[in-house]
């Protein structure tokens, strides 16, 4: 078994310390090379869980370790640690609206390598091509459709070559063609993408639908207030008697 990247010990996640946790008592570990698909109904806490696992939110209770240690704070190690974790937010990916798509993708590289934005733009050209964003590169985020904005957000998160990538609801708002491109890209990332030198990237995705991810996901989890449940492989998920899983599959069929 490969080394754990993220480990949850009795972690509860939620938006408010005063309210009930969205997902309580999570014991979970993400290992190198894993491809987790975290599913659940709307408002079940998937986004909050991903942001907590990415170290952007504090858990309500419990302990989280990244590479065996808690999140470093207050020194340069925090920046180095942060660069190892990529996060793609839900919605339109929270692109910087005052910058073009290409500048959005180049900014993290320019900032961390202390190079002019123009030089970083040259460096990310292969990444822009790999994400099929050549025609959108010069556009401002406000002029993109949601699917293209999410692809740009994925490209921006890939720019720093993180070791683990969290993607919140990759298909939200994407049309069928964009969904297919996005799924192919995520499949390539899980298997080994040229941008990462062919190394399989550890992925954690959240998705409201399970079916599109059966072929790509290697491990699955259901986030819900009634309790966190994991499935070691797609077969276990498909044969599960879990009522939430049944409900999610039946919703996919309705769609």
């Amino acid at each position, binding site marked *: 078994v490969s080394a754990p990247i993220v480990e949850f010990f009795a972690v509860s996640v939620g938006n408010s310390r005063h309210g009930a946790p969205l997902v309580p008592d999570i014991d979970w570990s993400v290992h190198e090379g894993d491809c987790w698909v975290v599913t659940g109904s709307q408002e079940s806490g998937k986004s909050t869980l991903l942001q907590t696992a990415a170290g952007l939110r504090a858990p309500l209770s419990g302990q989280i370790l990244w590479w065996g240690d808690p999140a470093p704070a*207050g020194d340069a190690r925090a920046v180095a640690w942060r660069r190892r974790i990529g996060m793609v937010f839900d919605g339109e990916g929270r692109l910087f*609206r005052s910058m073009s798509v290409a500048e959005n993708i180049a900014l993290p590289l320019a900032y961390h390598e*202390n190079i002019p934005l123009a030089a970083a733009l040259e460096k990310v050209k292969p990444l822009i091509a790999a994400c099929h964003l050549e025609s959108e590169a010069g556009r401002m985020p406000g002029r993109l459709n949601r699917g293209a904005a999410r692809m740009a957000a994925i490209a921006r998160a890939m720019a720093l070559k993180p070791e683990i990538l969290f993607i919140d609801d990759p298909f939200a708002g994407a049309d069928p063609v964009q969904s297919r491109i996005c799924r192919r890209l995520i499949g390539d990332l899980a298997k080994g993408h040229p941008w990462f030198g062919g190394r399989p990237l550890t992925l954690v995705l959240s998705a409201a639908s399970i079916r599109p991810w059966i072929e790509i996901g290697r491990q699955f989890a259901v986030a819900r207030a009634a309790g966190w449940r994991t499935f070691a492989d797609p077969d276990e998920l498909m044969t599960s008697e879990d009522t939430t899983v049944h409900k999610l599959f039946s919703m996919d069929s309705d769609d």
Partner: protein
Amino acid sequence: LPGLAAFHSVVAMDTTTLGLPAPGFVASKVYGLWSSLRRAVAFGLIALGAMVVQRRKARAVVGPLVVEEVFRAGPRLAPIVGFLGAALGVLFVGQTAALLDSVGASNLTGPLLVTVVIRELGPLVSGLVVLARVGASSVIELGAARAMGEVEALEALGIDPIHYLVTPKVIGFTLAVGCLTTYFIVIAILSGYAFAFTRGLPVTFEAFVGEIARALDWIDFPLLMIKTAVFGAFTGLVVCYHGIARPIRLEAIGGATAGTVATCVVGCLLIDGCFIPLYLLL
């Protein structure tokens, strides 16, 4: 790296309570004011600390942003500041010089102009113009970035929002207010003399400038630099505090902008008041 972690602690302060019994109206207002002041001072110190500690970091990215802010709050405001300087020159400098000359008190022209135009109105008018023209729009920009989650996106990319967003604005405003003040003073004095000259003031330009130069003390120059720098840095910090220090909803940005303008006007006047004893003592 102080900013990234410290930024959270400032935001977290919003939720801290003293655990005391429910206070009365006055007590709750006083505590609210104290909390706001504490948060603002903490944010200011963190931002200034981040500027010092991270001064060499990502200069290739932050440097152009500083230049952009200086240009935005400096040369782009030259027309309006020039107009205000010329108007003040005609309305105050020219009329005052002519009036003092008519009552035989032209020896007071220099001290009066130095006190009113150079020490007081120059920095104050420049600071308020920067606040009105750039500060207010910056609160909207930063508030929108905060409300749309762009600040969290910066953090997710390991980019310290204080270093990337606050530093350029504070440095830009500081330099811009200093430059605009100098420009404003020069325009006010020149246009004032021109107006007085057209009214038949029997004083040469050399004598007019000489009067002002004699009234100036060496301490005026460093104090003017310090005052303009404090006005600019204060305005920049208040703008950034209202824009990004706390979670904000899109509909609350208008209120934050109004709050910024009110805070900056009152704050600049209070800071201005702090310089009066220095001028009197030195």
